[in-house]
């Protein structure tokens, strides 16, 4: 069934035209050119993001060959989303982004969980209950297979039993200059991931994620992809990845799909069907404040041309691109370059513990 669906998607994707006209303020959608511009800005401002060309045979012709998708590697994920203490107080903090405009069919809402959540787990001492992830092919069994990657079912590969026998202690003599794993850090406040786990008894493991942003031609929005690794750098199973996705979205909008820019890679992806409407809402809100600020700025110094501030505090130090002719005397509002930065803030609410939003760091 899923395979048919994927076929359908790929055909639909093939047939849908490339968006040419800028629609980002009206619909929250962007053109490939705007995606590249926003990606350039993201990579410039936050060098953890880099452009990749991916598998050349999979390249999309509406994007530059060396700018097919964005990637950041090794994004830390300190906790499981399922272990975040989620109290009634948090529920009050939930922000309902509703989209009941006339244009929308109404009732389209997006729950932004964990909005403005403060640390309510001092030193992470209350071990959050790890909810069982709904898992189709035999729940616990699946999970246990993934953990550590080593506890493999015996009946599947008898030879696996022999692997521990391969331990070859005589291969190397003890080496005094090799730092023993998990020792090292003592005096300071830098903690080894393994120490958190031991210290608190909570299931704290530092997973890392490779996060990719592609351009989805059908939905005309960016699309996020996740590949996770556990603290031993072994790829996570889908069930494990779902632990890092907020419960609101885990089994609904996040699925495992073939990654479009590599031959046969499967990655978790947030389905982009609602991205445009959410982005529109967020952009509208931000745009208003940006416009207001720009107006104020203009009033304060009417002669001054320098009105292209990003969001006030983030005054752009990027080389200004020539703006579209004719808008010299108008207030420009938010620029499309900022799209992906905003997008990441939105994604951060879906994956609250994966620190995709590096922009909050400063």
């Amino acid at each position, binding site marked *: *069934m899923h395979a048919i669906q994927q076929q359908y998607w790929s055909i639909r994707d093939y047939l849908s035209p490339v968006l040419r006209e800028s629609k980002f303020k009206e619909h929250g959608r962007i053109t490939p050119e705007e995606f590249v511009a926003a990606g350039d800005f993201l990579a410039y401002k936050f060098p953890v993001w880099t452009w990749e060309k991916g598998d050349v045979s999979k390249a999309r012709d509406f994007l530059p060959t060396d700018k097919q998708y964005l990637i950041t590697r090794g994004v830390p994920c*300190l906790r499981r989303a399922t272990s975040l203490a989620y109290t009634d107080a948090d529920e009050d903090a939930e922000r309902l982004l509703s989209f009941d405009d006339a244009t929308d069919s109404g009732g389209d809402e997006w729950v932004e969980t964990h909005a403005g959540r403060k640390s309510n787990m001092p030193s992470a001492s209350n071990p959050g209950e790890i909810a069982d992830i709904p898992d189709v092919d035999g729940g616990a069994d699946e999970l246990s297979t993934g953990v550590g990657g080593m506890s493999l079912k015996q009946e599947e590969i008898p030879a696996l039993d022999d692997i521990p026998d391969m331990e070859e202690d005589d291969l190397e003599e003890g080496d005094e200059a090799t730092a023993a794993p998990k020792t090292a850090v003592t005096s300071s406040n830098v903690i080894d991931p393994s120490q958190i786990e031991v210290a608190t008894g909570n299931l704290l493991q530092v997973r890392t994620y490779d996060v990719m942003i592609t351009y989805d031609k059908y939905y005309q929005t960016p699309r996020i992809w996740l*590949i996770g690794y556990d603290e031993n750098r072994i790829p996570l199973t889908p069930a494990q990845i779902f632990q890092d996705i907020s419960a609101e979205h885990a089994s609904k909008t996040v699925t495992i799909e073939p990654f479009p820019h590599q031959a046969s890679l499967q990655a978790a992806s947030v389905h982009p069907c609602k991205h445009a409407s959410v982005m529109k809402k967020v952009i509208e809100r931000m745009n208003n404040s940006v416009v207001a600020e720009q107006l104020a700025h203009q009033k304060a110094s009417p002669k001054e041309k320098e009105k292209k501030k990003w969001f006030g505090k983030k005054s752009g130090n990027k080389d200004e691109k020539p703006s579209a002719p004719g808008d010299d005397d108008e207030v420009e509002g938010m620029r499309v370059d900022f799209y992906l930065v905003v997008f990441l803030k939105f994604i951060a609410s879906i994956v609250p513990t994966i620190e995709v939003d590096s922009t909050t760091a400063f």
Partner: protein
Amino acid sequence: MTTPPPGTPTIVQFTPLPSQTHPSFWHKLTELKLDVLKLSDAEVEIGGRYGVGRVFRDREAAGEKWVGVGGSLGVDEGSFGGQTTTTTTTSVPVGTAVARGIVKNFNTIEEFKAADKSKIFNQVADKIWSSIHTTKSTTLLNTFLVITYADLKKYKYFYWFAFPAFVSKPAWYIDGALGWVGAAAAAAAATTTGGGGGGGPGYSHDQLKSILDQLHKSAHSGSKPLPYFLVRSSGTTTVDVVPVEEYDPSKDRYTDTLDSTGTGTGTGTAIGFIDPSAGEQNPGWPLRNLLAYIRALYPGDSTKRLKVVCWRDSYVPRGEDGWKSRVGVITLGDGDGTGVGDGKRPDAVGWEKNVQGKLSPRVADLAPMMDPTRLANQAV
């Protein structure tokens, strides 16, 4: 590790470089096995890369808690490019080093288990050692090795990485009280405690920025990024970053009058490397072969005391996060050190331990990500 009494030299302990295999690496290996290698178990050259170790502020925890995430040697489908150093990226980000490696894929689990691992390992170590003497180049210093067995039907991959590193005998020591210090903090301390003209082991913000800029330039100017480099002082705000190959013992000798509190002056060149370790007092694995390289080519007293820059920054820090790079001044124990005089290759270590900390291979089970039937179920 207990804190040693002040002033006691401590053996420098290096954080092993962990491996990280991207799922696409196994996809590509599968293809290669089916279409090209078939039953051959010849060695195939691959490329990989590792990034700097990073520390992150734990925003959920109370107080100042940092979590270290070490860099790892990553291999993905781009590792199998025609040229060994090709990766899928258009440019290697700053703070990333490329490494060459060899993958040897066995046909059966029995062959995999019975393989003469010491022999394969020693061949790689010999190659690194001879490259030091013959080409005087650092390009092979971080060569790695991986042996694999792919169970294609079950989507299971057995593998064992090795990162050959030469053992220094006698070992390198660092002053126990001073230890490894933050690159910027050390400079501040040196100036406040009267280091005399900004001596001390550290660097100023401008100098560190200059290092970052030059590393960036070397990675993007078409020349290769520098996994190892020299940091020559050339002023109070700038430094010169040059390849290690340009080391000149007469010009680059490091001398200092540092006491155990870090007070004093130091002049001369520092050796630097892209450091995948996140441990405060442990430099990363790649430093070992750099030290072996320096000692092998420039034996004698001039290289018995070295200033080392563990480079751990990939961008100019903003806000309260400071520079993450660390510096330390290390001293070789008594004796001439490895490989000096007779030119014989020192012992090498570096097989990666498995999750349980044992010298044993690892297994990647990609069935949940690759098996079509399981994926179909997942998507219901």
